[in-house]
């Protein structure tokens, strides 16, 4: 362990605001970490090691972005494990869930373990790699779930290539039910252009019905239409084990403030109407939307510069999610801050059955500190991610990530 490293494992955080999510209150604390292990958390700690003044900034434990495309292996001109995990840490995430649509697709034990091994060497966010539901994302044969679960994989998804075959989806749900792993579904219907709202709505409806039929918990990715969330709300009310996520771009960007014919705004599901954005925010604030995720989909500017038809779908977003949602939902709209915190931490952890470590002594904690009073102008050049295709930029954030700690180590600090 070098000197530089040692410094990142031994530190004292002074005056950090710790949320109590249960009682929706805050308490200001000092936190002492030695050799990466949380030694003490109390009102006042003195120690002569490295001191970080948190200036009553907000601490969020166990932050996770549940929807990230790493592009590694095979598409490393767009992004690499190194850039995406560092970008995630800069964005305030201590963990991310990676989609399996790399080249090759992550669909067997060997490929899964290779990614996990390479990611573990990177000083950045921790990686939860999902594997595909169907072999090679073909939509034809189901993966060997048992083998992958025994290798440590806990999330399965066909993401952008939705599993259209309802019988196969039902079988996948029956196999994965009770296994402790989670199904992350990009709900979409075959035979309808993916951009058409009906594709998503019917897809969500089908996946909700199959979840109800099989009693298998299902997580619906990036809901963008009012009708989709209405289906989910009804299902939740009758006890179906459904959770869902929304992306910042569907909350804040829509046809009224974005040029939907420009490939810079091409994404799947597409940006919708102003009413859809408004309804998504309404349902988030009333607690029906569990998670906010980035659907971080980095592409090169060359790829995005082509015609609309040719350009790939997707936005880069893991680095801006936290600044954007705290600026837009908390600072500008005054939404309940605890709801926002849950949507990027414990709600997500519960869905993927990740440890909720919190701030117990004796553990290697994962947390992020956010400065809610520091303004920061974010532009493309500032991104660590190779994907500069972020539709919010340039963006004047009304907050900034002060530091990200992963397994008791400071992996990112912004003074």
């Amino acid at each position, binding site marked *: 362990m070098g000197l530089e490293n040692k410094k990142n494992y031994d530190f004292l955080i002074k005056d950090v605001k710790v949320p109590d999510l249960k009682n929706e209150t805050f308490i200001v604390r000092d936190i002492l970490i030695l050799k990466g292990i949380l030694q003490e958390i109390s009102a006042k700690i003195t120690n002569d090691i490295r001191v970080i003044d948190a200036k009553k900034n907000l601490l969020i434990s166990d932050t996770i972005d549940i929807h990230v495309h790493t592009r590694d292996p095979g598409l490393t001109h767009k992004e690499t494990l190194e850039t995406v995990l560092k970008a995630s840490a800069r964005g305030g995430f201590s963990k991310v869930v990676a989609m399996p649509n790399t080249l090759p697709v992550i669909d067997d034990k060997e490929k899964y373990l290779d990614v996990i091994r390479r990611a573990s060497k990177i000083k950045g966010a921790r990686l939860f790699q999902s594997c595909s539901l169907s072999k090679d994302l073909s939509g034809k044969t189901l993966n060997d779930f048992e083998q992958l679960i025994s290798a440590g994989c806990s999330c399965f998804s066909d993401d952008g290539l939705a599993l259209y075959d309802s019988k196969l989806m039902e079988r996948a749900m029956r196999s994965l039910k009770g296994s402790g792993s989670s199904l992350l579904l990009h709900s979409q219907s075959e035979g*309808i252009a993916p951009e058409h709202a009906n594709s998503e709505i019917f897809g969500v409806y089908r996946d909700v019905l199959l979840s109800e039929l099989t009693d298998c918990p299902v997580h619906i990715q990036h809901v963008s239409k009012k009708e989709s969330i209405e289906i989910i709300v009804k299902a939740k009310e009758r006890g179906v084990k459904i959770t869902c996520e929304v992306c910042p771009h569907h909350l804040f960007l829509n046809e009224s403030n974005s040029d939907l014919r420009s490939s810079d705004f091409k994404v799947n599901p597409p940006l919708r109407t102003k009413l859809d954005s408004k309804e998504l925010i309404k349902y988030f604030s009333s607690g029906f939307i569990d998670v906010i995720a980035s659907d971080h989909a980095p592409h090169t500017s060359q790829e995005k510069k082509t015609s609309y038809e040719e350009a790939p779908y997707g936005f880069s977003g893991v680095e801006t999610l936290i600044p954007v949602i705290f600026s837009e939902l908390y600072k500008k709209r005054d939404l309940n801050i605890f709801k926002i915190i849950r949507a990027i931490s414990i709600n997500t952890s519960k869905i993927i059955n990740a440890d909720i470590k919190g701030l117990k002594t004796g553990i290697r904690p994962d947390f992020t500190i956010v400065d809610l009073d520091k303004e920061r102008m974010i532009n493309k050049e500032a991104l660590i991610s190779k994907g500069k295709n972020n539709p919010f930029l340039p963006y004047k954030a009304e907050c900034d990530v002060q530091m990200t700690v992963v397994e008791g180590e400071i992996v990112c600090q912004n003074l």
Partner: protein
Amino acid sequence: MDFNMKHIISINDFQREEIDYILDQSKKMEELPQKDKIELFKGKVMASLFFEPSTRTKDSFISACLKMGGNHVGFSDTSSTSLKKGETFADTIRMYEKYSDILVIRHSIEGAARYASEILSIPVINGGDGANQHPTQTLLDLYSIKKSKGSIDNNNILIAGDLKYGRTVHSLSLALSLFDNINLTFVSPPSLRMPDEITEMLRNRGVSFSIYDNLEEAVRDNDIIYMTRIQRERFPNGA
């Protein structure tokens, strides 16, 4: 009996008593003189929303509606509707809900009719959703069996053709399983056999059935022979 089903979405939603009720009512309606029949749906409007093309199903609904004195609105070609402009299915059907007293829907997507029944307050009849369900066809088949044989119970029924993709044979077989002393004989090329999930369900319900590849071998003492065509349009890759 109290009949309190509001929608007809899947034959699997029916109990035997409910099927009997519908068949009895149908018989009464069929026997009514035309001057009384025309009063049944007078002043009412049926919306027939055919998101997927169909001639017989659509026109048989419209014909029934007209014979009962009702009127109809709707479409059978989505290219002329606002759907092309990105209107959602929910918006389209909610608009027709305002125009009509009952909705008949055909859609290529499985589950479309059930979704409609959940968001509308008027009755919805499924006119076929993808390869999934076509319940009124099944009710008609049951009615025809009852009319020609006097009863649905105690029949040897042979079902031949494309048993893999033909949704009507799936629904009919499951509906027949609700009746007493039914013997089923399935005849199809090996590649188009009845799916396992259907035969498994029949087995669970204690229905006796046998499977043949060849029609000549299978035909014996049948009360009813039910033939289907090859469902080319539902084959994967259109092959």
